[in-house]
């Protein structure tokens, strides 16, 4: 006796969250059944392995049919074939677009192209995430990227509108899209200590301040690309590092203000010129695409690492950065106050987030 056909169709589509997770994680039916058996479900419900097998197959089939709709979530809401309560629809979408930290690490800042897709095999081996799951996550990134690539308006809003994601997840996707578009280097060994959250945080700040959309929200809202004009203008900041007088003045202003307030005052004093030069040079170099890509490497190399080796506490870093950016206003010979504020506003936030072990 073999089962030729075995199906269950409910008027309200049954969604088993546990099975959905297994499916998303890319397990085969056999593996999923084995995992479910191990979870002790048989003992809890008194079911047999055959029942579990049939149940799992059913759910997998349903998910397979739903997948086409999940690629364009608004379709899931308007379709008539599956009657799913709104709360469940939201769950389906949210989970489908959720991603693994380990995976996103591997593709963050990479071009979402076919070439990268071939690397998915390696990523799968490296992270232990099934190839199927890697594919889904990669395809999700790529799909979102393609849809919002040419769109105007707020990146997060666009993603939310077209993929019906939660605010949190939409922000994450905005970061992923932003990173992929600007191809920021994140894979260097130096950056290994950072989490996706750190990058996402920085991306958000940069989208807010560093893109075209940030300056003029009225027209040509392009959240994806950094503001070329802004990057060009930042060359002007070079003077802060190149002009010795200005640099000395800046240093003395900062030191005066922070005297007695900083635990690592002497280290700061000793390193001020290096740090300042580093930060200013990062800004000045951003006209080249190559340097844009290395932004995070540079920040860690030029600022985070020196501070960390001197064991600056985070509070001191904050005091320093506040004072460092504020003191520029007192430099009479410096004319690019607004530019500086825009740059440092973003940078201060990023550095504070990046500054940890």
């Amino acid at each position: 006796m073999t089962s030729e056909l075995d199906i269950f169709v409910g008027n309200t589509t049954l969604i088993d969250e546990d099975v959905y997770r297994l499916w998303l994680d890319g397990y085969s039916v056999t593996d999923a059944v084995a995992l479910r058996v191990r979870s002790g479900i048989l003992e809890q419900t008194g079911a047999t392995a055959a029942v579990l097998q049939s149940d799992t197959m059913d759910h997998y089939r349903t998910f397979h049919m739903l997948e086409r709709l999940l690629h364009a979530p608004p379709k899931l809401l308007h379709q008539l074939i599956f009657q799913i309560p709104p709360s469940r629809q939201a769950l389906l979408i949210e989970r489908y677009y959720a991603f693994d930290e380990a995976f996103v690490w591997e593709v963050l800042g990479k071009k979402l192209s076919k070439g990268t897709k071939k690397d998915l095999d390696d990523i799968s081996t490296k992270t232990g995430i099934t190839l199927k799951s890697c594919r889904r996550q990669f395809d999700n990134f790529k799909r979102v990227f393609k849809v919002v690539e040419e769109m105007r308006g707020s990146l997060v809003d666009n993603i939310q509108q077209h993929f019906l994601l939660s605010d949190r997840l939409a922000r994450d996707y905005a970061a992923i899209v932003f990173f992929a578009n600007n191809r920021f280097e994140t894979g260097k060994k130096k950056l290994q200590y950072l989490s996706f959250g750190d990058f996402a945080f920085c991306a958000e700040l940069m989208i807010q301040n560093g893109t075209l959309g940030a300056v003029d929200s009225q027209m040509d809202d392009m959240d994806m690309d950094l503001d070329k004009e802004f990057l060009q203008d930042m060359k002007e900041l070079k003077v802060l590092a190149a002009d010795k007088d200005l640099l000395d003045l800046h240093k003395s202003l900062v030191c005066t203000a922070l005297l007695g307030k900083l635990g690592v005052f002497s280290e700061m004093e000793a390193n001020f010129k290096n740090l300042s030069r580093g930060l200013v040079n990062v800004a000045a170099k951003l006209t080249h695409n190559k340097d844009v890509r290395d932004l995070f490497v540079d920040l860690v190399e030029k600022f985070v690492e020196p501070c960390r080796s001197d064991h600056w506490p985070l509070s001191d870093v904050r005091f320093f950065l506040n004072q460092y950016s504020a003191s520029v206003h007192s430099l009479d010979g410096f004319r690019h106050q607004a530019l500086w504020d825009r740059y440092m506003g973003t940078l201060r936030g990023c550095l504070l987030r990046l500054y940890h072990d």
Partner: protein
Amino acid sequence: MPGKLKVKIVAGRHLPVMDRASDLTDAFVEVKFGNTTFKTDVYLKSLNPQWNSEWFKFEVDDEDLQDEPLQITVLDHDTYSANDAIGKVYIDIDPLLYSEAATVISGWFPIYDTIHGIRGEINVVVKVDLFNDLNRFRQSSCGVKFFCTTSIPKCYRAVIIHGFVEELVVNEDPEYQWIDRIRTPRASNEARQRLISLMSGELQRKIGLKVLEMRGNAVVGYLQCFDLEGESGLVVRAIGTACTLDKLSSPAAFLPACNSPSKEMKEIPFNEDPNPNTHSSGPSTPLKNQTYSFSPSKSYSRQSSSSDTDLSLTPKTGMGSGSAGKEGGPFKALLRQQTQSALEQREFPFFTLTAFPPGFLVHVGGVVSARSVKLLDRIHNPDEPETRDAWWAEIRQEIKSHAKALGCHAVVGYSESTSICEEVCILSASGTAAVLNPRFLQDGTVEGCLEQRLEENLSTRCGFCHIPYDELNMPFPAHLTYCYNCRKQKVPDVLFTTIDLPTDATVIGKGCLIQARLCRLKKKAQAEANATAISNLLPFMEYEVHTQLMNKLKLKGMNALFGLRIQITVGENMLMGLASATGVYLAALPTPGGIQIAGKTPNDGSYEQHISHMQKKINDTIAKNKELYEINPPEISEEIIGSPIPEPRQRSRLLRSQSESSDEVTELDLSHGKKDAFVLEIDDTDAMEDVHSLLTDVPPPSGFYSCNTEIMPGINNWTSEIQMFTSVRVIRLSSLNLTNQALNKNFNDLCENLLKSLYFKLRSMIPCCLCHVNFTVSLPEDELIQVTVTAVAITFDKNQALQTTKTSVEKSLQRASTDNEELLQFPLELCSDSLPSHPFPPVKEHLESASSNSGIPAAQRDRCSSWIELIKLKAQTIRRGSIKTTVTVEKASPVGDGNFRNRSAPPCANSTVGVVKMTPLSFIPGAKITKYLGIINMFFIRETTSLREEGGVSGFLHAFIAEVFAMVRAHVAALGGNAVVSYIMKQCVFMENPNKNQAQCLINVSGDAVVFVRESDLEVVSSQQPTTNCQSSCTEGEVTT
């Protein structure tokens, strides 16, 4: 030109890409009705076209309106080659043809293609303007309402239940026409879909005509089936019960009828006079406030004759003029006499209803069934479907005579079915022989309800169990005892019926699904020989199915079966029997005896030991089941308590017979000769198998109950979460060493595993009950068995369920008293602070007005207009009082609790798809049906030539069934409804050819589209409007009853 059909094509969405080059589609729409076709403009390059067409107007006969479906085809325009069809939508416009149903069909319909499935949606608006037709000899029957529901629909009242209507139409099956060899599968499928749609329309119209002839206005329990006879043609047949229904203007009017009898009602002197005006009951009885339409003449001439059995309609004489005494004895005789005269003028006194208005069912005799094996021949002339008619007439005649033998004049819960394999066809009919109250069957019976109270008091809750046949002249040997409830009348020891459990029946404990499953191998044979072989096997199958049912019933410690449905399926090399029923313990019937096992070889030590071991196991199972289903009947200190030892000569009440093609009728005696029926003799391995199979049925996991009736006896605290589902399984038998035992085991495992899977899948709904579990078996190929199950899972409140340890008698008594208390609450409040000389009638009469639940009864208002001021003053009090009532009722029933759980209620802000509930039941728990929009009767074919790519057979069928659900929901939503009740999947024919990577499936579904309102919503309204206030509290009262 009595009708104008208007159609507007608004827009499309999610269309498939038809032009690979542009990834877009140039779509336009063809709208066809009859022979007229209109086209919209081509909407270029869009997957979401906005046609916004003009109104396309069709001027048509109402006959065509009933027969023809509206056919909408979406196409892709192609300049250089033929336009490609995207898909079609068939819309049955019948619901627009009667005034009380839908007025407009408007909404998104899935565009369906028989090869590709659903391909996008189209927004359509359909309206019908009907002109009055004065032609008396018309062929249309617009205005007759159809209901699939097998009880009187919730917002109607039965004025008269006329009786059986049936019709069948035949045609050639397009699939087997010569042209099919040259046309595409799509064209062939569409021809078939269209033909069946046309035939259904025609059938419905013809049935409607018969109803009009009988002066009815509705068909209840309408069941339409297709027989795909292959080469020999296509038969569409339908049966139903003609009724005259009255729409209840407000739910107020039907409350007293279903309320527990109030004191005043009992005081009404019995009066047979059909004239309602002469009634002496209190003026505030709400039934009196209604107007009834009586037909002036009782005789009429037939206006048209159709092809088949006519109802012999002789003028009624002497009906409704008799008067019965108050005593039970002579009354009963008279009743019988009347029923007889009322029913005998009908050729077939059959009723497809399974639940009845209170007082309708007097006695139940037992199940009657008849089967006949026929050889199919080509239907030569579709206009003369005489052979098929004659076959059915013959079977019905048999059923009628069986019922007569049981002392009954009517058959209720009647249904018909067929099983076809190649050229052999088994026709089956079954029902429950019963004695009915004649008042519902004739004109002027409207008052029956009230008067019935008197009679019901004589035999409350157990009357239907009393034997209708003569004790001294029993149709079969039976074991009778005095009724355990009233102690006056005789009852049988076991009762089998095809109907739902009457609402007033006293049940102890809970019920459960009982199934008998059986396979018999049969030699492959041709034509006549085959039919003979099947005919010879049938009696044995019936006998065994029946024995299995009886044994399983005993094993459950129960004594009655409801909703019994025995299905015999014929295949190439085997016969399958599947009987499903809901077992209950009726308080009026004696305690069932146990099951005794006896060995054939005495004095064999080990064997004896084995036997006693088995015996112990069986006894344990019975004890366990009694505990599980909470069967603890009250101790009766009389000697008639059923002993656990088998009683001699226990009898079955199943009377049936076979007739084969030769029309030879053989009666089968189901009595087990002289031996004790419930001594199981283990004389060979077969018997051992039987005993084992008895014990292998696993009870559902805790928190689950199942039944195949409308509701589960013993559970009445439903919450609002429901889940309707269809599950299909096909197994392939290994062709090697097929024996009856192996077959039985396979089949048994298949059904048991299927149930287990259902329990597992629905575990999140615990505590819940699977209701209306409907198994269908088919044998699509030599070694394939297909089982299709449709059922609904309903959650209930566990805390309440635990209280059911009390017998329901106590409970209903309790309820009756609380009812009274609740009702008393506000009238007393009213009286207490009114003037000393207040003009109110005594409290008792006031009680009536309260129960009439229009806070201020109309009659009173007229009589005592001076009170109005006072009443207005008290309105506030009344409101408060009623709310109090609502709250009390709500505590008793966890309806409110369910509302919180209901996830579907708040529609998602950005979702445009409304939730449509589907249920095989006639009601929706926790909600009130406010409108019936018409029947849904849909037939779909789906075919694929890329089976593997669509996920194999499972993927293919899964998607198809989901699509069918979607199309049903879309049609209901377009009618303005939010649920389908009495939903049934009548056919699911699945054929596959994996070698060719092909599969085909035909599905036929039906149900009633309705609008329902959540009781919680009603309450919200009620707190604002005092007039509707009572409505909601009554509805709840009704649901909990």
